[in-house]
């Protein structure tokens, strides 16, 4: 049933209203979900495949509700099982350094100041002042008004500037205001924009509205990379997480991101698993590699390594790269550094040995 909706539009339905639907849905036909070998033969750009998606609310609904369901017990059991992987010695060192390079060092407080952001940027460029071999983090994530500060502080480094936008964290503003927020960040030089989806619209079934907003924001981003925050803690079910993931990817997301960090629960292992499965299936369907960012509540290295294991065993090594997987965090970085120094020296350093941002 669900794969049918995903793969074949029932003949007759929708065709009169959407002359292009039948044709454009053909690549989906016969792929039976994620049948990779078949899909590869007919792979087309995302935009082409999904251009018609959302032209009518009913098409979109049929597609999203037709996705294979997620069994909560099974998904949580799988995540728990992967969490028992034992990552030691060389593998641990590798994972810790990889995790450092995937951190979006974040400050999103009302009390943020230029001084705070500059301090964070210095930490981002050189996470461990005593050890230049530690890679810089992936990005610094701030509110739009502080993007110019971060941009200046990070000039000449590989660290990107990410800005939250679209009336973060609630997203409760008109589209015009949200787009102005995005343009503000982009004009100020943000390399990456972290938007929030309209959870109210999603939960009330207005999927088209969510998709349209993602598309509009994508356009407003221009060259900037778009991360779409699903706020999974408010979506409640894994079925919703999978649907929202697809909405974001169809809308043009470069990354899908779990949470704002302002809602509990934030990132969890099973949520990450479901999003990674969506990303994997989407890649098989379209060839497009979409990144995943887990954010909120990841405070220690052990948790970070568990996420990397899930990435490794769900989507594979291609995603073990800062261009396709990120951690949105602040306190995580120092634990990664501390565990790394423990791996290298054999003993733990004190917390005072690591600079605060």
């Amino acid at each position: 049933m669900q794969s049918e909706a995903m793969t074949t539009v029932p003949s007759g339905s929708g065709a009169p209203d959407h002359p292009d639907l039948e044709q454009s849905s053909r690549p989906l036909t016969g792929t039976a979900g994620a049948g990779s070998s078949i899909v590869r033969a007919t792979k087309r750009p995302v935009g082409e495949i999904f251009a018609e998606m959302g032209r009518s609310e009913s098409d979109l609904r049929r597609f999203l509700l037709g996705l294979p369901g997620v069994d909560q017990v099974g998904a949580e059991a799988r995540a728990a099982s992967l969490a028992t992987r034992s990552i030691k010695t060389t593998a641990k060192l590798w994972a810790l350094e990889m995790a450092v390079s995937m951190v979006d060092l974040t400050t999103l407080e009302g009390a943020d100041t230029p001084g705070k952001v500059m301090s964070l940027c210095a930490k981002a460029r050189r996470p461990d002042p005593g050890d230049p071999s530690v890679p810089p983090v992936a990005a610094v994530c701030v509110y739009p008004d502080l993007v110019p500060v971060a941009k200046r502080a990070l000039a000449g480094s590989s660290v990107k500037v990410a800005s939250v936008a679209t009336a973060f964290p609630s997203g409760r503003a008109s589209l015009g205001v949200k787009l102005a927020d995005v343009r503000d960040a982009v004009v100020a030089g943000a390399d990456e924009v972290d938007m929030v989806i309209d959870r109210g619209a999603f939960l009330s079934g207005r999927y088209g509205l969510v998709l349209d907003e993602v598309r509009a924001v994508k356009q407003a981003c221009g060259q900037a990379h778009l991360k779409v925050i699903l706020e999974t803690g408010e979506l409640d079910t894994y079925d919703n997480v999978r649907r929202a993931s697809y909405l974001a990817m169809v809308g043009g997301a470069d990354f899908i991101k779990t949470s704002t960090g302002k809602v509990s629960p934030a990132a969890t292992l099973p949520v990450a698993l479901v999003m990674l499965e969506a990303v994997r299936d989407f890649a098989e369907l379209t060839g497009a590699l979409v990144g995943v960012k887990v954010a909120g509540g990841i405070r220690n290295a052990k948790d970070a390594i568990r996420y990397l294991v899930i990435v490794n065993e769900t989507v594979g090594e291609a995603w073990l790269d800062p261009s396709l997987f990120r951690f949105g965090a602040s306190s995580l970085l120092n634990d990664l550094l501390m565990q790394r120094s423990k791996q290298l020296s054999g003993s733990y350093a004190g917390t005072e040995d690591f600079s605060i941002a």
Partner: protein
Amino acid sequence: MTKSYPTQESEHDLETGSIKSDDAVGKGEGAGLIGQHEPCSPKLPATGRAGQAVFEYAPAPESRSIVHLQSSYGLFIDGAFVEPLDGKAYKTENPATEELLAEIAAAGTADVDLAVEAAGRAQKTVWGPMSGVERAKYLFRIARIIQERSRELAVLESLDNGKPIRESRDVDVPLAAAHFFYYAGWADKLEYAGFGPDPQPLGVAGQVIPWNFPLMMAAWKLAPALAAGNTCVLKPATTTPLTALLLAEIIQQADLPPGVVNVLTGAGSVAGAALVAHPGIDKVAFTGSTEIGKDLQRALAGTGKHLTLELGGKAANIVFEDAPLDQAVEGIVNGIFFNQGEVCCAGSRLLVQESIAETVVEKLKRRLATLRVGDPLDKNTDLGAINNAAQLDKIRELAAAGEAEGAVRWSPACSLPERGYWFPPTVFTGVSQAHRIAQEEIFGPVLSVLTFRTPEEAVAKANNTVYGLSAGVWTEKGSRILWMAGQLRAGVVWANSFNRFDPSSPFGGYRESGFGREGGRPGLAAYLDV
């Protein structure tokens, strides 16, 4: 030692729909060293920073030194470890390395006499007359010591059986403790169990258990028997005596009165046969092959001895097109590759609705490529060694029969250790009900994939077997699950899950899978005069 991994396109032939076998594997035994941990996963080119290796999990072996292996073990009779009267011994080995672990006493008929007499005495003088409250205290104590010594038990189980430490640590040992806890709770409540106001124990139970879950099967047998007031003579499987002997040590540590539990190691044809035939035995409980089960039933006919049998199976794992697919794939993997498929209730027949068969098989293959086969003591191992050479031969023979009958064989590329008993995870597609691999219990990591069109056909195929132990149903439609559960002739039906066990849930089969239930309130009935 990883072989090159063909791309998914080359494995799957779009035109014919057939799945090509990777000829580098399937033959089984590649060269490799134990402990060298190679996931069966495809190697993508490394990406990202220069010099970056891929995420290779370093070896993470559980410490073997926690186990203090003796060079030889005696029989546990009347509360003490004793030498067998006729002095015979045999060797038990580590199936992952063929390394000798210890010399084990082989009980003869005289030893069986001693053990049964000790059990009879203990039942009449101590354990039978004891109040349920007091019996419960002993059982709780055993359960707690199992938990305290869980790491030791897990390592020993993996050494002797070949199963991954992840499973012995997370499944076998916790479930063994849980069974003792559960039945300890019943010991003082038997009069409320629905078997009359004062249900009586049967007497002395002779219990013969298999090698696939050595400790857990011992717990499943001992806990309800003891709670009900019986005493026991336990005969562990020949190839896996060590955890039963450690359990005997735990029973000593718990101060259980002498003779209440006796453990006789040795051959089934000698010790096992003498035990079940002994006139001092009132009840026989057997878990093992259907063939031996039939022999037992013939041998016990007319003797008045109570009998419960938990025998083979050929479970259908049924996946409907509206199933939660990613979790169904996990369930298929768990159903057949848990414990190397050496599970009587293993989901060895995948019945998948034809409309999604290709998708499911593709997803399954991708998942199997990530299975980690190797050193059972490595905490990241998913698939360990086959328990013994005879079983490996049987698996090879049936897999060869599958190929000969025209089914298409596939295994992910993976290297297997060169010593020990190993078989790669294997999937047969294009299997029909008429094939031997769809009918006979393989008891190994070999999955047969069959398709169906309608729920009625699924039920007909699932029930088209001499067995009837378990089944799995995967669908998001609740009403269909309930309907299927009513139609399937299987003792256990799992809904959107597989191989999940709980001491409160009765387990047992239909037809050639045996009779009687273990676990839950029905598990008590097997040890009470009801």
